[in-house]
Structures are given as C-alpha cells and as structure tokens.
C-alpha cells in the first residue's frame, strides 16, 4: 500500500513526462478499440446483409453447381425435388436458375450471369416484384453496380444473348424494369435477374433450378444425391475468412501502436532508474528491500496504463459512442471493393472488447515496466547512494 501511494506521488511528481506517456498510451487504447470495433461492426453488418440478400436460412445446391467455376454454371441445373414441392408452393423455399450469357450495352460485349427468380418470392431482399412488364417484353432487374458499369437505366432495353440447354444461340431484348441498391456485390456484380419461368422457357429447362433458398435453417433436413444443403456458416465461409484476414492485419496495427506506447514506457523506466540511483539507495538505506523497490518502480510504470485508461475513457468513450450511433461514411462502396460492405459502417464496441483491451494493455505495461526495474535488484546500495552508475 505504501508502495502504491509512493508510486502515485512519484509519477505525479514527474509532471509532463508522465502526461506525455499517458497521452500516447491512451491514444493507443482508443485506436485499438476503435479499429477492432470497426471490424466487428463490419462483420456483423456483412453477415446480416448476406443473410438478408443472398443466403437466407441456407441453400440447396444442385451437385454440379460450383460458384467459382463460371464454365460449369450453365450445365448446373436439375428438376426441383418433388419432396420440396409443398414448401416451394408455400413460399418457404424459392428456386433460382443460373446460366451464363452476354449483354451488349452501348455496343460493348459483357459476359454476365443470368439469374432466374420467382417474382413473388419474399425470402431474399432482391426486389423481384419489380419483374413486371408487358406481354411481349422480358423484364429484368439489376443492381446499381451493374447499372453503373453498363450505363443501363430503368426503362432501357439491352440485347441479351444466351444458349439454350442444347447449346443453340438465342438472343432477345430485355427491358430493365428495376434497379436495386444492395451492399452485397454477389447479387449485383455482372449479373441480371429475370423471372425464373421466362428463363426456363429461354433455356428449355421447365421446372429446373440451380439452387433452392430456404427461409429457415430448419428446412435443410431433406437429403438427396442430386441436391446438397449448405448451411449459413458454410455459405459465409469466404466472408468470414476475409474478415479474419482483416483482423490479422488489424493485429499488426495493434502491435505497432502498443509497441510505440511501450517504447515510451520502457524508455521512461530506464531513464528513471538511471537518474534516481541515489533515491534507490536511500530507499534501501531506509529499510526497503530491493524487491520492494523493484515493485515500486513497476507500480510507477503500470500506473501510466491506469491513467491512460481514465484519460482514454474521458475522450474516447464519447467519441466512440458517437461513431457507433452515427456510423462512419466510407469513401468507397462495396462495388469498388467487391466485398459485402455498407457505405456507412456502424462500429460495435462490446464490453468484452473494451475490458479485454484494458487488461491486455495494463498487463503489457506492467511487464514492460518490470523489465528494466530488475536492474535495481542487482544494485549495490552503497554505490547507489553515491550516485555511481552500475
């Protein structure tokens, strides 16, 4: 207790040197928490958006379907399983049919993925209800990313070329009846959405589908040799890997920030021990053991972290709370990154994140403070009293 009081008096007495260290350390605290909170917020938002726009409660995939192999997509389809007919009719499962095609916006050629969707479905957020047009028109909807890359607008017509199941070329004009805004590029980039029945007619594939999207995960119990059920976690594995790799990059920033702060603490400690040798000798002469003196100096160092926590909380809490409420506008959109990312990110600061960061920084600071203080244990008190460097 005496050591704690003495340590407090000593570091307060050090004045500006102490406050500089505390400011640097508090800055590290706030930035580490802000960065981690930002990633957690992105993680939460991306998962929410992917479930809402693409994954829903999970998906059945026809065996041959491999989203990473565009060359096999047109051949990946099968009749919908009879066992799921009732659920499909009830709107609990919605089928999608995929094929590759080409569009010619403004005389340019662009390879695209054509997706057929039920106009009345309500399982994913793609606004398929916009797929309405006259009897002789083929309605189509696209995302804002696709609209921007092709220059297509609502109401415009574009030539679409595709192959039917036999491989014969066919082409027609499609009318863009809607453009939707989404944070999920995998339902927007280089793709066009058509009514599934129309696409089935075009492909000569009546009642066939490539994937079946379930409203709830409980619907994924049906099993067959032709269709595999993919759970939400499996479908989000790529996103989670990206976020994990971003977190690793975040750890690097975290380590650099902490290292800068710890360097300041370490430097301060080394300087203190060098300049306060007579004081150390006096403590020992007055009856303190060397171990108690080491503890005193370690407390002094660790108190920087305590002060930094208080200071960081004073300006960091309102700042981070404001950001968590208002969000952070990103200068780029998901279309530019190709990742599920909203234009405004809302960081998430959990209690675990804040407490965890505080505990880690306090422990590391204590260790860094103890490291140079061990030298005191090897000092000769008589020499120390004379102020001779040992």
């Amino acid at each position: 207790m005496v050591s704690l009081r003495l340590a407090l008096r000593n570091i307060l007495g050090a004045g500006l040197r102490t406050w500089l260290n505390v400011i640097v350390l508090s800055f590290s605290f706030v930035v580490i928490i802000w960065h981690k909170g930002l990633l957690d917020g992105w993680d939460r938002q991306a998962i929410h958006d992917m479930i809402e726009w693409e994954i829903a409660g999970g998906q059945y995939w026809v065996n041959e379907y491999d989203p990473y192999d565009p060359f096999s997509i047109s051949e990946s389809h099968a009749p919908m399983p009879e066992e799921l007919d009732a659920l499909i009719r009830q709107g609990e499962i919605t089928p999608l049919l995929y094929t590759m095609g080409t569009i010619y916006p403004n005389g340019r050629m662009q390879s695209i993925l054509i997706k057929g969707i039920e106009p009345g479905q309500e399982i994913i957020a793609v606004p398929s209800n916009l797929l309405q047009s006259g009897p002789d028109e083929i309605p189509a909807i696209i995302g804002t990313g696709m609209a921007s890359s092709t220059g297509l607008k609502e109401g415009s017509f574009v030539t679409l070329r595709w192959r039917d199941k036999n491989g014969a070329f066919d082409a027609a004009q499609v009318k863009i009846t809607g453009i939707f805004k989404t944070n999920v590029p995998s339902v927007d980039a280089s793709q066009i959405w058509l009514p599934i029945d129309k696409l089935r007619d075009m492909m000569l594939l009546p009642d066939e589908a490539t994937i079946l999207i379930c409203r709830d995960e409980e619907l994924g119990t049906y099993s067959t040799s032709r269709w595999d059920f993919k759970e939400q976690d499996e479908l989000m594995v790529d996103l989670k890997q990206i976020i994990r790799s971003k977190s690793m990059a975040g750890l690097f920033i975290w380590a650099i920030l902490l290292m800068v702060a710890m360097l300041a603490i370490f430097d301060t400690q080394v300087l203190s021990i060098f300049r306060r040798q007579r004081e150390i000798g006096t403590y020992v002469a007055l009856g303190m053991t060397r171990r108690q003196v080491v503890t005193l100096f370690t407390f002094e160092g660790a108190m920087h972290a305590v002060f930094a926590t208080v200071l960081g909380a004073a300006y960091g809490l309102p700042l981070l709370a404001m950001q968590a409420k208002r969000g952070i506008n990103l200068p780029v959109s998901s279309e530019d990154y190709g990742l599920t990312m909203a234009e405004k990110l809302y960081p998430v600061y959990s209690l675990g994140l804040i407490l965890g960061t505080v505990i880690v920084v306090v422990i590391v600071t204590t260790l860094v403070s103890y490291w140079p203080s061990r030298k005191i244990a090897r000092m000769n008190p008589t020499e120390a009293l004379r102020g001779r460097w040992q």
Partner: protein
Amino acid sequence: MKKLILTFPFMVYSLMFSAQVPDGKEIMRRIDQNMSSENRSFTSKMIIHSIRSSRTLESRTWTRGEENSFTEYLFPVREQGTKMLKLENQLWIYSPTTDRTLQITGHMLRQAVMGSDMSYEDLMEDTKLLNHYNAAVTGSEKVGDDDCWVLELTAFDPEVTYQGKKLWVDKIRHIPLKEELFAKSGTLLKRTELSNITNIDGRWYPKKIVFKDMLQDGEGTEFIIEEIQFNIDIPDHVFSKGSLKK
C-alpha cells in the same frame, strides 16, 4: 380475265425460276464439297479490329472431321507457343509462360477467341451443312460482281450453335460469299464476308473471311488463310494432350 392476263407473266416467270433453281440440299452438298474435308492443315492470320486499335495473331491449325482440332499460335511473341486442343466438347489451352494446361468445357467454348469476333467453336469447327440444316433457295442476288443464290438454312439439329443461316452462294463456284448467322429467335448475331476465292486442289476456298459480331461495335475480325492443305495425313499424336507441351 384482266387479272389472269396480269398474273400470267409472273406465273410463267415463277415456273421458269423454279425450273432453273437447284435444290437447296444440292447447293449445301456442293458447299460442303468445297469447304469441308476429312482433315486439313492451315496457317492463318487473324486481325482483330477493336474500337480503339487492331492486333494480329498468327497460328497454325490442324483439324480432323468436326470434332478434333489443334492450334498453335506463332505470333505475336507474347502468344507464341500457346496451344489449343479441342476434342469433341472439351478444350485444353496450354500457356508456355505459365507452363500450365487449362481445361475448359461448355460455355467457354462459346466465348470470343482472344477478343475477336469469333468463338472457339467458329474457329476450330468444320461443320458440314448437310448434317445440321435444311435449306431453301429464296432468291437470286448479286454480291459484288458475282451472281449468287440466296439460301436460307434452318437447323434440324437442336444442338447446332446457329439455328438459322442465310447464305449468298456463288452460282458458279458454289461457295458462300456472304453469310448471316441467326439466333433461334431470328436475331442477327454475326455476318461474315468471304473473299479471295482460290482454287486449291480442285475445290474453291475463301482465303479471307471477315467476321462481324452484329451485336457489338467494332470493325470485325479478319481471318486470312495464308496456306492450306486438304486431306493430308495428320498423325494421331497431334490430337493428343501430349502435343500441348511439345
């Protein structure tokens, strides 16, 4: 009576025309005789005219029947040594820079070759018209100075790439001088113009073909045959995967 007098000349003309017009099948058979062969080998130059610039590719190709084809690129240096092997519906592309062979099937075969107006199918297939289409002669027109039959082809084979074709066939040499290729819906997809018709080993063959994808802008792709040999002995190993890395 007046009506009969007016229509009579047209009826006579129609009868005369139909008497002179050869059967569509016969025209296709003659085209196939000129254009198709059991096997062939040729050196060609492909000049791709895009909106901004033009570039040239040179290659040597060996084909056997409708299914097998092997192409090696000779120019430019960047593409030199790139090889493509097509066996039925599968295509392998070997890139010497990466020393890797990529196998592609299905949709990729329908993609444009190196940014040209031709697909891999257009480039590597030797399709006999008689095996896939029914034909009807619908008229007679001039292409340049040459009198041509206008032939409209409708595919009876649902798997053929272009379900409709319109050909302007030279009445004397029985070679198409112009082709229009249609989608199932009737949309015009491509137009080709065939010129430099040369007699090679008793058959007429176009040494220059200009392909134009009608759905996109651009000046099209020129395909120039520099040297061609028909019905030669091509060893089996040419159409094997082993030849890709040789």
